[in-house]
């Protein structure tokens, strides 16, 4: 796989559907699989204190730290345009389509909420007591999470939840510059 093939031209980028992009670092390459770890993004954009507030947490590894969160969010790409061209420590730009992100959010958060509120309303109408409504709503939430699980499986089977390799990141490219570009 040539270097040019892994770095699509700016013109070809515009032909692809709109996607949410992020930068990830290659942490392992094994055969046709590449393990990636997303780079930490700042919550409030680029405030002056972001370096000081995240630096300590980033350096430390343990429960609840930024490092452990990033490790938990590691993902694997199967043969992204010839994985032989990748090496550990390399930064790449990955993306998911805007539509996928929205349908994923609706599945994960919207579906359980709809089930919970519907179950709570029905229970309140039937029994009229707060305690039973609470139990009904908790049951609805549980059912909604099961429904979300089924829907997520369907989305994953269609490949809509997997990030795609877009290009190699240039040295000065950060999540901030990606947002400005988009």
């Amino acid at each position, binding site marked *: 796989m040539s270097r040019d093939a892994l770095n699509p031209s700016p013109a070809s980028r515009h032909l692809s559907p709109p996607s949410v992009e992020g930068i990830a670092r290659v942490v392992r390459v094994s055969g046709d699989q590449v393990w990636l770890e997303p780079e930490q993004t700042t919550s409030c954009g680029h405030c002056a204190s972001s370096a000081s507030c995240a630096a300590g947490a980033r350096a430390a590894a343990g429960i609840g730290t930024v490092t452990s*969160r990033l490790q938990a969010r590691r993902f694997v790409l199967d043969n992204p345009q010839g994985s032989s061209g990748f090496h550990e420590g390399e930064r790449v730009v990955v993306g998911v389509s805007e539509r996928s992100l929205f349908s994923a959010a609706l599945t*994960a958060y919207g579906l359980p*909420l709809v089930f919970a509120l519907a179950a*709570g309303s029905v229970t309140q109408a039937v029994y009229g007591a707060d305690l039973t409504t609470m139990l009904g*709503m908790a049951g609805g939430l549980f059912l909604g999470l099961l429904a979300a699980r089924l829907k*997520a499986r369907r989305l994953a089977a269609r490949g809509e939840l997997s990030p795609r390799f877009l290009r190699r990141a240039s040295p000065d490219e950060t999540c901030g510059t990606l947002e400005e570009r988009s």
Partner: protein
Amino acid sequence: MKEFALMMIGAALVNNVILARFLGLCSFMGVTTRVDTAAGMGLATTFVITVSSMADWAVQTYLLNAYGLGFLRTVTFILVIASAVQFTEMTIKKVSPSLFQMLGIYLPLITTNCAVLGVALLLVEGRMGFLASTMFAFASSVGYSLVMIIFAGLRERLVLANVPRLFAGPPIAFIVAGMLAMAFMGFSGIATS
């Protein structure tokens, strides 16, 4: 039924969490550069606010009120909200690791979103039943998401506009936010009581 509908419209539009109560302003300015990320954040916040309000109501009714521990309300609610966020994160991870990979980034940010605590404290003032308080929290968070998405759409258009250099970036965003708040003031004409 009519009271419920009016209460929900009031919570979502008339007394909007962001534009009328000025809560959640950090995420309002920080996560509204794109419509899709604003929608993702809005949905995640809606889920957390609704779930934590359910837990807050139970804690307030069966623990704080029952044992006269009202003075511990704020601390307790912060603990409940942090637990709700952690619960949501664990659940999403269990339900679908792929969804967690895609959406997990929003969740830690919600713990520090003052809109979640603000809505929980408003519920106590309202002295409502369980379903009413949950619906109020849901409507408030829908209002929050609505404003986030509208503002993100406006900011996406602003990028394409020819803004004078002096106003480019956050200044024009603040001006647009002010105009949006004034537009939402129009909803105060709706009689909700």
